[in-house]
């Protein structure tokens, strides 16, 4: 199964300042990433710049409003992510537990499994699948 692993932001990460105080954490994180690759589970991942570099688009009926960062609710923001291929959620949790603290202070990492075709089960009849595929085709501009 695939999981997206989110490193949540902190007040420190939202400042965007990277200095000597982060050196030790970066080194530990480098070793950890190496382990993930050597275990064959890492499909990808990256760090995100603070939300002050980001934008949001708010939807309401036909209106689209662009909102510039930074955004509030710091602890709910995402500061980085990995995409992993693991056998089950237990394995994902075990790997996250051995991650060095990705932030200077207290922080959180969130694990979210991706939807897979089996998850739709009975809901995805052959007819529904066909519609689904047709929509995808249209999205692809065919």
């Amino acid at each position, binding site marked *: 199964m695939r999981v997206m692993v989110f490193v949540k932001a902190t007040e420190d990460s939202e400042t965007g300042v990277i200095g000597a105080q982060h050196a030790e954490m970066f080194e530990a994180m480098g070793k950890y990433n190496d382990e993930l690759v050597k275990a*064959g589970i890492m499909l990808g991942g990256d760090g995100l710049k603070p939300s002050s570099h980001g934008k949001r688009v708010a939807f309401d009926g036909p209106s689209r409003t662009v909102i510039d960062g930074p955004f509030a609710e710091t602890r709910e923001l995402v500061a980085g992510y990995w995409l992993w*291929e693991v056998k089950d959620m237990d394995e994902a949790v075990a790997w996250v537990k051995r991650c060095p603290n990705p932030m200077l202070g207290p922080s959180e990492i969130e694990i979210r499994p991706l939807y897979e075709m089996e998850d739709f089960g009975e809901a995805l009849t052959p007819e529904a699948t066909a519609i689904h595929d047709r929509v995808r085709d249209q999205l692809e501009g065919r």
Partner: protein
Amino acid sequence: MAAATETHQAIEAVFRIERARLIAGLARMVRDVDKAEELAQDALVIALAEWPKTGVPNNPGAWLMAAAKRRAIDGIRHDRMRTRKHTEIASDLDHERDTSVETLEAAMDDDIGDELLGLIFTACHPIISAEARAALTLRLIGGLTTDEIARAFLSAEPTIAQRIVRAKKAIGKAGLAFEVPRGAERAGRVASVLEVIYLIFNEGYAATAGEDLIRPSLCAEAQRLGRILAALMPDEPEVLGLLALMEIQASRLAARVDAGGAPVPLPSQNRARWDQLLIRRGLAALDRAEVLGDGPYVLQAAIAACHARARRADDTDWRRIAGLYDLLRERMPSPVVELNRAVAHSMAFGPEAGLQLADAIAEDAALRNYAPLPAARGDFLFRAGRLEEAKIQFERAAGYSRNARERTFLLERALACDS
């Protein structure tokens, strides 16, 4: 610090992550795969007793290794050093009597992966049959149970168990050292490892028998093995080539069968369902491989990449594919490659070109009763407008096919020749 409420499930998840490396380290020490597996299992039992009280230690791998080593020493003392071999091991162990977690931690960091690689090479040693190598690799590196392996290969559990026992005996008898081969031996041994991984992948990808065309869990297992190997041997073009090939082929898993479970041939697949992440990973691995060199897997990956790059079937660069097959048949001569080459030439230069190449291998003994040959000839004839001859070929192919879904598909193609 970890909470002192670790459940057995969480501990087993940690163990699963460490298991292969643990067995690898122990096997090198005691020179016995069976014993190494047993010691690893002992370490799990100890962890299941300790960790719920103490929490998972900071370096669980080193902790488990320390527990297993202590158990090994105890066991050897208990055996009263009956044989000389045991005496040697015991004296070795006495020199490193310091089995503290800190010492082991340092040692394990030094050669992260080297012992694991040694175990992979041993499990895939050419003295063992390819099927047994696959079973042993899935057992030792993949951590699958004998029952899981038997179900994956549609075999009876005792058959697989027997295969594994025999493979372990062969390793013991040959006195293999659980090391990564160097020098002249190396290339052949790498090929032997890659053969096993691709065999596992193909067993999942093109299920040769039974109702299901694809058994994705075997594909995932093979991909994981391929990724581990590529991380541990980043300079081997064929290792990267095989990884690229598997990632690109696996990207089509969701599109290869329709909702009813019937096979969908490449040109008719809904490419929107191809997994773009796997394609990107595959193309990246191929780029790295092509810089380092070439070989049969790199060439096959390059062919797979031609399909992956085509946004629609009509965009496929068949001339390039035909050219790659011309190279592949020199590097890896085989009737199956010749057949695929015929298909590629038919797409690049027309059905007559395909027929000409297919006719040249029609009498090849290796392709007798091989469904894809008449299926391909049927397709060439169909496209050349020779429907009656095409029908005969499709029916013949259906007769040879061992897969129920594929047979239905071929019979439908035969029927379509009537209109």
